[in-house]
């Protein structure tokens, strides 16, 4: 009579074991278990002019080995650099002060992480200290542009500067797309219109009032988040002492690259680029 009962118990036990085995399999075989942060840690500051796609909780690596994670990313209103707080495991507390923090990308499509290359200083960076030497991420367009020697066209359109910018090609940029500085969103694209006379695209950017110290010779560029991501306008600060004011137009602009073409060249078996004509300007 205890026969049916015990068979239930055995079956249920097997079921539970199987469930937990599946969980263990998922956790250990299909994920980076190391991504779970453990142990004591200390924080180090680093400033980057462009963090690209770096996100909070992204890994921090030394010699490719994970030693911590990105704790926070902030942009102060009066700065044009992003403050990144790195949380690093206590056991790696001998990082030389002059080490270089660089934002790397794992592969072409992968997530970004912060890599620390050791310097030669005797003194280790303290908890709460700052890594002064940093290298920012490079937008894919810039790299590809350099690679092919076909850098973006810098348009020099007449008229005074404004929070308005003209591009020969905005790609798939549309109203509502983000405007970023140093990789952090500071505003959005208000409208995209084709100019019937000049045959290029007039883009109106609306930028948060807090960022009122953007030099007036800053450049606006249409970038793509990653290889197949959405497009956004990036503002690369210039060196002029005067700041952009409402109604100004940005002189230096860099249009969207025909990413499809680039990839087509890049990958030998490249797919055709004839499907999508991204530009709304002249051909």
């Amino acid at each position, binding site marked *: 009579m205890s026969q049916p009962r015990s068979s239930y118990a055995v079956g249920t036990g097997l*079921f539970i074991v199987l469930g937990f085995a*599946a969980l263990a399999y998922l956790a250990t*075989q299909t994920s980076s278990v190391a991504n779970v942060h453990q142990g004591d840690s200390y924080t180090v500051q680093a400033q980057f002019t462009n963090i690209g796609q770096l996100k909070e909780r992204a890994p921090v690596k030394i010699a490719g080995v994970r030693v911590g994670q990105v704790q926070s990313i902030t942009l102060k209103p009066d700065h044009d650099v992003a403050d990144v707080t790195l949380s690093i495991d206590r056991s790696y507390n001998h990082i030389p002060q002059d080490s270089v923090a660089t934002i790397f990308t794992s592969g072409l499509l992968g997530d970004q992480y912060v890599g620390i290359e050791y310097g030669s200083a005797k003194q280790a960076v303290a908890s709460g200290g700052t890594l002064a030497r940093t290298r920012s991420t490079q937008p894919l367009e810039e790299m590809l542009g350099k690679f092919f020697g076909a850098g973006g066209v810098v348009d020099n359109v007449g008229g005074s500067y404004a929070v308005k910018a003209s591009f020969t090609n905005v790609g798939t940029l549309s109203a509502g797309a983000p405007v970023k500085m140093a990789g952090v969103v500071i505003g959005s694209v208000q409208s995209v219109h084709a100019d019937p006379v000049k045959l290029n695209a007039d883009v109106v950017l609306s930028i948060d009032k807090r960022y009122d110290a953007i030099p007036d010779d800053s450049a606006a560029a249409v970038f793509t988040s990653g290889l*197949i991501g959405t497009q956004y306008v990036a503002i690369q600060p210039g060196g002029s002492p005067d700041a952009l004011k409402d109604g100004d137009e940005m002189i230096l602009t860099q249009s969207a690259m025909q990413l499809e073409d680039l990839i087509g060249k890049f990958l030998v078996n490249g797919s055709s680029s004839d499907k999508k004509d991204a530009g709304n300007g002249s051909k």
Partner: protein
Amino acid sequence: MSARGQHGNVVTQSLTQIGLCGLFLLTLLAAIPRSFRYLRETTRQLWFVGAMSLTIIMVCGLFVGMVLMLQLYHVLSIFGGTSASGMVVALSVYRELGPVVTALLFAGRAGTAITAEIGLMRATDQISAMEMMAVDPIAYVATPRFLAGLIAMPLLCCVFCAMAVFGGHLVGVTWLGIDNGTFWSNMTAVVDVHTDIVNGVLFKSLAFGAVVSLIAVFQGFTTPPTSEGVAYATTRTVVASSIAILALDFVLTAFLM
């Protein structure tokens, strides 16, 4: 005539149901200490709702992984990114498809069974008989089934996800020729234990398990104890569970992401 039940608009009726369901949940939770005496019954229910659902979950998980890989491979091959397909299969299954599909299958397989069983127990006076034998039906019938659903869902979801990854591997690596090493390394590089497995698989499926088994037990206990009532309640369990799962999925995703 029961003017309250039949007439009255849909909104009022739904709100009443939700309210009653919430109160029922409190009753269930209050009965948990008393139901510890019936641990054996909980185990038995775990067998019925969990172990007996294993086959359908495993088969469906396998096919979901396989079809997902097939679809993704063709889309990603346009971008030359087929090596990422394993990773996308894993992410989409862990974050969305795994918990949601498991919960929908669970509602169809186990939820209806719970509702129909309790409804029939009421129709044949078994619940009253328990009352008469001084056995609390909430503690003996309702809570063990609720707890069993709560425990079974995350486990089933893990099995589902593992099978989906296996199915993706089967199609992607064995059939379509994605490199085995690339398949795994891309996956392990992106899948995060905290966001994807704890928040995605475990937390969501736990929440869905609670919702589905609550609805199933509630419908069983509140339906008119007739064969019509039971049939109606079974349908209601599937409909209400599905809506609740998808709505809750949206809310959870918004909070967890």
